[in-house]
């Protein structure tokens, strides 16, 4: 399959402090279309920095990054913004939804900054379709405060999907969720991946990584492990187990 992401000897050095911090030290990585990758590592291993680089929120200090064939290193701030808008979808640990703004309006947000002009009806319809994918179309007019954590994260996923991105980037998407809701969210990701969407996520939970197809481990700014996942977990099956356990608990109680 065609490579969506090609990292070639990527370095990131922060010299804002007294001592320059070498956060990413020469990462070379290729991610093909349709992959489902988990990046793991202890805090300070450089996985978040790598994620920011992949997400075009930051530019590498050295090395070459081709996103869907485009060399990102040469782009300016606005061109990066357009790239994020067109080719990337973001899901954050803290959901990062706009409060006092309905689910639908949150999902519409990336379309406001698109290069193409849409009528407000088109925008609305696409937002509803996107919410439908994550199973929340009936909650379109709810505010984030009226939604559970899992529902909020699904709204965030719908927002990430609205511009039909090349890659979905998720930074600790289950970090703020309980285990059952985490499985629910991983189920959404697995379903999206089956539909052909490339997903790259950062996590520090090993069991969450087992829902993915490929696991990368970072340590001290370097990739130290790159393995395909054997015994991959299925969110649907895991959810069955959880529900069974729950009803068993109810019976015994």
């Amino acid at each position, binding site marked *: 399959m065609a490579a969506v992401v090609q990292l070639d000897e990527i370095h990131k050095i922060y010299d804002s402090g007294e001592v320059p911090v070498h956060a990413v030290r020469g990462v070379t990585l290729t991610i093909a279309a349709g992959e489902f990758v988990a990046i793991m590592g202890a805090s300070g291993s450089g996985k978040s920095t790598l994620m920011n680089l992949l997400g075009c929120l930051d530019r590498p200090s050295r090395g070459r990054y081709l996103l869907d064939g485009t060399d990102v290193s040469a782009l300016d701030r606005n061109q990066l913004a*357009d790239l994020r808008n067109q080719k990337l979808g973001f899901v954050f640990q803290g959901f990062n939804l706009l409060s006092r703004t309905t689910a639908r309006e949150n999902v519409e947000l990336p379309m406001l900054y698109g290069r193409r002009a849409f009528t407000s009806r088109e925008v609305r319809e696409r937002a509803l379709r996107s919410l439908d994918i994550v199973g929340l179309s009936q909650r379109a007019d709810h505010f984030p405060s009226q939604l559970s954590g899992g529902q909020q994260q699904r709204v965030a996923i719908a927002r990430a999907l609205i511009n039909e991105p090349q890659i979905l980037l998720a930074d600790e998407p289950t970090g703020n969720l309980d285990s059952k809701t985490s499985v629910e969210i991983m189920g959404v990701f697995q379903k999206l991946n089956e539909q052909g969407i490339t997903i790259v996520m950062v996590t520090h939970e090993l069991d969450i990584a087992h829902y993915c197809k490929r696991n990368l481990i970072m340590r001290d700014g370097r990739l130290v492990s790159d393995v395909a996942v054997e015994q991959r977990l299925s969110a649907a099956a895991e959810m069955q187990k959880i529900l069974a356990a729950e009803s068993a608990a109810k019976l015994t109680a």
Partner: protein
Amino acid sequence: MRFVNTIKVALRALRRSAMRSILTALGIIIGVAAVIAMVSIGNGAKSQVEASIASLGQNILLVFPGTANTGGMRGGWGSASTLTVEDALAIQHEVAGVVNVSPEMRDRSQVLANGLNWNTQVLGEDVSYLDIRIWSISDGEMFSEADVRSAAKACVIGRTVVNQLFPDSDPIGQTLRIRNIPFKVVGVLAPKGFNFRGDDQDDVVIIPYTSHLKRLARRPNLNSILVQATSPDDMPRVQQDITDLLQQRRSGREPDFTVRSQLEIAEAATATSKTMTVLLAAIAGVSLIVGGIGIMNIMLVSVTERTREIGIRLAVGAHGRDVLLQFLVEAIILSVMGGALGILLGIGASQLVSKLNNWPVLVSTSAIVGAVAFSAVIGIFFGFYPARKAARLDPIEALRYE
């Protein structure tokens, strides 16, 4: 599309914190209202001054006699008694661009009628005096040319004199006595009110100047000559021509007269009220600036509060320009909305002031346009710094902001 979206986003943000938006706009509302009210009141005062100057008559030149020097003691203007009726006739006949000339005598006298008495101004004038002063007779008629020629004992009187001497009766045809000389009242003047110096213009008795010279003053010299020119543009030339003519008639003697233009008097008076208007507007303008600073303050708070929002917007593809525009538009909407409400409040306040104090107010369009333009400029000026701060945020930092 992108621009329209940005405006929608800004409006939505303002609506979401409606109370704060209103309080922020209040600074501008009060500022604009103050400017408009002050300018309106100032303009009203100015128009009143102008109206009272206009009531003096149009394009008027006054010829005063010069100073009299007696043994080294110099009297003021008018102390010499050197203007004659012949001077007045010469101006009438020889100076081009002169419409009316009225030789003038002034005097204060005790006037008796009906068993009542009253001290008032007694003017000796020509028939044309009423035309020059744009004055009219409300009852009866003006004394005639024939009355002037024959130095008749006829007079017209002002409303105040009517009230004082003929409180219960029709004055027309009755007699009043000035220094024991009986004058027949032939007309009553239309009320004219106070002039810009605060003198009661209706407290007057007007008789033919010939009668005044012959029967009251008993001397040949005039107090002044009132000249009306055809047009304001002509006045400097007419002034010069009168000066030249009188100088020539005095064949080389020291000039013993002075010619003054009404324009000079009017300019001085309007300059005062103009200064007052500018001063009031400047004070009100300060409150507009304070309002602007209020907007900047709130926008800065808003940018800090919404750092995460800005981070999200930047992450999903907003350009710095989009964020800048969003916050700038918010500030401009606040100030222009404030401006619009301020106009209504300002007009209302000036009407109220006008009603309560009986002052004339004049709401000028230029003040309204100026206030709105100024409030928009304030929005841009004070909104720009917070907006630029927002636009320059780093998306990663902004997303991490707690």
